[in-house]
């Protein structure tokens, strides 16, 4: 099987299960979860199903193209099912069949692996799925994003495409994978691994990176003040990537780390709340009309209650 056959097989599989087939996000991200089609769509009451392939950058994992298993950039195929159907794990196993895996000939396990993205105020509970010992997918039930409890929750499935194909083809070196019948993975990607490893580990200017971080943070704040959450979100993603590079360079100490993460987290919290408010203003168009109106009403009541609470508190403070 070639890399592109694998991508097509999985996209086709999920396309047939009512997923919107999306494209990778055009801002650099560390994982498929950071694509707005996940981070934002899992918020609020509207149902959604989406699948896309997301090239994901992990500066710290760069090895100059020399390591057979580690890559600065790898490809994740990400699926979001919101809400998750009761048989979501069985559907997932069917997707393995779609890749040509005969399930009864293998050792498949769902082992506890909970997920957390502190910067995104996001947590989930789930498993890593192993195939004969190889971790081939992450399976997560989202519980929180942007610090907001999710209702409904989403089921997220992430396939590590390179690793799966290495297993299927019994290839020991990622660069030997066939991208298609004519070109190998190494022929296409090896040079970028070298260049970006060199860039992230040796040449990225740390002071400039810190400055850029401040600039994008400021821009995100500015945009949030103008209620433009999508553009603000892009700037948060920039911050996250800058942070990852600084981290790979060891330029951020343990205590600073906590502080820097908190700065982005508070921005992403505002993005999340702003996004939900925006969907509310549109009256949740992806819900059927009746359910949408119920949700709008519910949101109105919640707002009323919390403003009552605020007033009460304010009055108490005044009298006290």
């Amino acid at each position: 099987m070639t890399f592109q056959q694998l991508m097509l097989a999985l996209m086709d599989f999920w396309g047939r299960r009512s997923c919107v087939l999306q494209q990778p996000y055009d801002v650099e991200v560390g994982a498929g979860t950071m694509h707005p089609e996940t981070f934002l769509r899992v918020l609020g009451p509207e149902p959604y199903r989406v699948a896309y392939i997301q090239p994901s950058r992990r500066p710290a994992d760069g090895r100059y193209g020399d390591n057979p298993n580690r890559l600065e950039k790898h490809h994740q195929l990400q699926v979001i099912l919101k809400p998750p159907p009761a048989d979501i794990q069985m559907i997932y196993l069917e997707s393995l069949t779609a890749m040509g895996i005969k399930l009864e000939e293998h050792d498949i396990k769902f082992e506890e692996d909970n997920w957390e993205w502190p910067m995104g105020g996001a947590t989930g509970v789930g498993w890593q799925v192993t195939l004969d010992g190889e971790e081939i997918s992450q399976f997560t039930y989202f519980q929180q994003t942007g610090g907001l409890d999710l209702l409904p929750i989403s089921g997220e499935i992430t396939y590590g495409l390179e690793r799966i194909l290495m297993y299927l083809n019994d290839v020991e070196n990622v660069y030997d994978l066939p991208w298609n019948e004519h070109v190998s993975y190494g022929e296409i990607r090896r040079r970028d691994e070298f260049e970006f490893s060199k860039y992230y580990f040796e040449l990225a200017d740390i002071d400039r990176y810190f400055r850029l971080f401040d600039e994008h943070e400021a821009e995100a704040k500015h945009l949030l003040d103008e209620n433009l959450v999508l553009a603000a979100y892009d700037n948060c993603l920039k911050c996250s990537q800058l942070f990852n590079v600084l981290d790979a360079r060891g330029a951020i100490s343990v205590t600073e780390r906590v502080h820097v993460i908190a700065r982005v987290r508070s921005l992403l919290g505002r993005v999340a709340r702003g996004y939900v408010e925006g969907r509310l203003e549109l009256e949740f168009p992806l819900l059927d009309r009746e359910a949408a109106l119920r949700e709008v009403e519910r949101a109105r009541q919640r707002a009323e209650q919390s403003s009552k609470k605020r007033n009460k508190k304010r009055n108490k403070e005044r009298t006290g």
Partner: protein
Amino acid sequence: MKGEFLLEIGSEEIPARAMDKALNDLGAGFEELLTESDLEFDQVRTLGTARRLVVHVPSLTERQKTRKVTTLGPPNSIAFEDGKPSRALEGFARKAGVGVDDLSVFDTERGEYMGFESEVGGRMASEILSEGIPGLVRNMSFPKMMYWTDPGQRFVRPIRWVVALFDGTVIPLELYGVSAGTASDGHRVLGSRAIRVSGFDDYLRKLEQNYVLVAQDARRQKIEFELERDAVAHGGRIIADAALLEEVVFINEFPSVVAGEFDSRFLELPREILITVMRVHLKYFGVEDADGALLPYFLAVMNTKEDVNGRIRKGHERVLRARLADALFFWEVDGKKTLEERREGLGTVVFQKELGSYSDKLARLLPMAASIDEMTGAGVAPDVLADVVGWSKSDLMTDLVGEFPNMQGVIGGLLARREGASEEVWRAIYEQYRPASLEDSSPRTMGGVVLSLADRLDTLIGCFSIGAVPTGSEDPLGLRRHTQAVIKMLLDHDLPFSMRVILESDRRLDREGQERLLGFYEDRLRFILGRAGFAYDEINAAIGAGSDSPVDVQRRVEALHDVRESPDMVAIAGAFKRIKNILLQSAKKGEGLDGDTDRREMEAEEQALEELVDRVEPLVAELAAAGEYRRALDEMAGIRATVDAFFDRILVMHEDDVIRRRRLKLLKRLFDSFLEVADVSEVVV
């Protein structure tokens, strides 16, 4: 009539580490429910896999026992007026829903009352269970919970099916929106869905046909048998690992063992690293020969019946090969520089922003370790200690620690051994992060103990000096754990110690900071002693006499624990509370104890107490200094009669200033003297 009860809660994969507690909690909850509901049963068994929690009661009564209950109304004396039922009696009958004619007289301890007898209970078991089970399951707790439809309803993973049968009939109930029925579910890949079962035996049989061994004991036996079989087949024996075994018992619904091989060049890796790669990352068992040398084989437990075409073995071998290749590469690269050379790089590794780099930490550790060595009498030679401390953090600069952060220290020790360091040195580096918890054991070498003490105390004092103090459940730097480890090491090795001297010589904390840290440290000491089974008041009394040295505190609390039940001790505790109150009150009034006294109106009881204090004061001081706390307490208990007589006859708060002062001073002497052993006023009598 008796019947059989079966409950199966079908879930998505529950983390293996949570299973044991979950089954125990479920079983205990069930027994409680049955007992409280007066339902007779023979036993409650719990079984399960990652995908199912099962309760089986082989013999359960069909109906609750019935009991006679008497309901009493008004006393007979006011029940009738002129031979007719009074208003009180009629009111009672109406409220209770019985006729006045149904009431009769009951003879009670308080006299005759009107009332009636009725039978309660007799409800059907299935009715009680259908009401009780949902609450019982909702109350189960797991280390990490989730919700999937209703945020108010949390469980460990989504519940997908429920089987609840009493004697083959479905008990109507609903768990998290799932209605109970008769249909179970087989192995995810090899089994069928919707398997109808009629009772426990039928259930076990049908599930086994569908590749689920429901009983954990059956799975454990199968795994142990096959591990043994395959280890022997490869000319070795299994490296036993009980925790790993429990994990694979619960992860796999139909476990089978597959043996794999790895290239013997990986045996160059130290055993610790090989086993960590196999065990922690891949959950494989290692195999060793009769001499305990690792063999190039591993045993994996797979969740299926067989490896049809060898692909599973090949897959596991691939994964292990990639991991071992990484580890071996790092092991080789990391040997290219010595620990001494790597030490220089520590200036670039931040320990804590405000506390400097690891290089700065090392500079602090050297003198600290030397003074701890002296204080505790550990007796580590100065040149050994210099190497131990000097090389202790160099492994932070290695790729292996980057890859296996939990092996920090161990890796430093292994690298030191390869460099040819003496066993005393490399072992100390190796075990410097022990004990990792109170369940772990302390370092065995004194070098390891001294390094571990110095490192943790430096972290503790440093964090307090920058205000990074744990609050509530927040303790990101693990200061509680570090402090507990310090106390545990001192107790395990029976080492003399003074926290105050350490704080004084460190100089980073002002008086207030020192007190805050001492309070934190005392809390941990209390926790550890409480865990060892001492009562909180014993602990308070022992710590009331000082907490500087955990070993001393432990001796005092042990002595106190032994004697506290004796009548003299109980009386002394009472007397001391009185003395403490008197002293506190006079202090509150601002009365100083300074000033002259004379011997006016010296009564016999006062004189007797004075003579006693003159005698006991030096004796208690001597015994306390020698750590003979039990004997000191016996001496203290021996003064009971004299103290009692004093309080019976003597008015301490005399109106004459001089006399009052004299008596207060005497009590203060007594109090202070005994305070060297324990603040017995803290003992609750």
